[in-house]
């Protein structure tokens, strides 16, 4: 019975989506999109238009997204508290190849993440992607040695400091150009397609990258060390 209902639901959904296909493909840009496409580069100086939209035109939304991520990580950290005194199954230590490889690759991976978020206004990617790559570097260390001690105080400090800097950058826009998170007039726009261009966008993306990276790294550490459910306690 359940399968039949599911099948009928899938077929209905397919029909509805199929009807929606022509609606979802407009043939010309709307007025807002046309303004972005025509003036986006001239107004913000970034060669990646997506970045200009995410960080400048819709910068306030991005601030909200970062806040949502912070709240979810804080919630996970609250729910998955470390429980001391619980005897869980000891992991088999990783082999020497994995440990050496993790130590070798940690620096290039983190450097690559930094490259992604610093070049957010020039190449695809930006703060979120770069932060995820940085967190993946930390994850590599954790995979090689589960009980590696991460500096949680430092991660928290980095996270709060970067969130604070984001708001500060927005206030700088308010002070210099008259609107929150404004770009023009705060920092020089520079010449097109150079690293030091696009005004305040690279600064904000660096801040987002550091914030996302430290948050995700802390989340992974908390999840790995949370006490297991019944599957693990049964082996006590």
């Amino acid at each position, binding site marked *: 019975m359940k399968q039949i209902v599911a099948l009928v639901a899938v077929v209905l959904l397919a029909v509805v989506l199929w009807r929606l296909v022509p609606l979802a493909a407009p043939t010309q840009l709307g007025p807002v999109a046309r303004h972005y496409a025509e003036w986006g580069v001239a107004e913000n100086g970034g060669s990646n238009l997506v970045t200009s939209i995410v960080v400048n035109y819709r910068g306030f939304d991005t601030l909200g997204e970062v806040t949502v991520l912070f709240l979810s990580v804080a919630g996970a950290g609250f729910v998955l508290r470390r429980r001391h005194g619980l005897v869980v199954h000891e992991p*088999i230590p990783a*082999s020497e*190849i*994995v440990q050496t*490889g993790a130590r*070798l*690759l940690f620096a*290039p991976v983190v450097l690559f993440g930094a490259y992604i978020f610093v070049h957010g206004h020039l190449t695809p990617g930006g703060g979120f992607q770069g932060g995820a790559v940085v967190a993946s570097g930390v994850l590599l260390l954790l995979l090689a040695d589960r009980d590696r001690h991460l500096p949680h105080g430092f991660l928290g400090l980095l996270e709060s400091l970067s969130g604070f800097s984001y708001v500060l950058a927005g206030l700088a826009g308010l002070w210099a150009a008259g609107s929150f998170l404004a770009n023009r007039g705060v920092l020089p726009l520079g010449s097109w397609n150079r690293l030091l261009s696009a005004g305040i966008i690279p600064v904000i993306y660096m801040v987002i990258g550091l914030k996302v990276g430290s948050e995700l790294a802390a989340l992974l550490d908390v999840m790995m060390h949370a006490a297991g459910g019944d599957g693990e306690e049964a082996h006590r």
Partner: protein
Amino acid sequence: MAVNVVIGSVLVALGAAFLFLGALGIVRMPDLYNRMQAGTKATTLGNLLTLVGLGLIEPAWMLKLLLIALFVLMTNPISSHALARGAYRAGVPLTEGSVRDEYREALEEHGEEVPS
């Protein structure tokens, strides 16, 4: 026609052939360890050849493609090694015609736990 394009195209086709052979290997081989043999070595070679061939076709991108190849060369063996070891510890059986199991001998020699 420029000579680098010719050599690059040949390398790309050769690499794709190795990719195909590797994929054929993971379908045809009898157990996980044999599949890994085909699915990691042959495809890594195919991947590297294809990337270098594309770099020869477009010399301006050579540096970035070589960087990709370098990362593949560094990361893929580590994960394959870890996967084989983890699968053995998890008790994935060898195929029936296997003659020798040196890892089990080594584990017994060091007095470590041997999976069933």
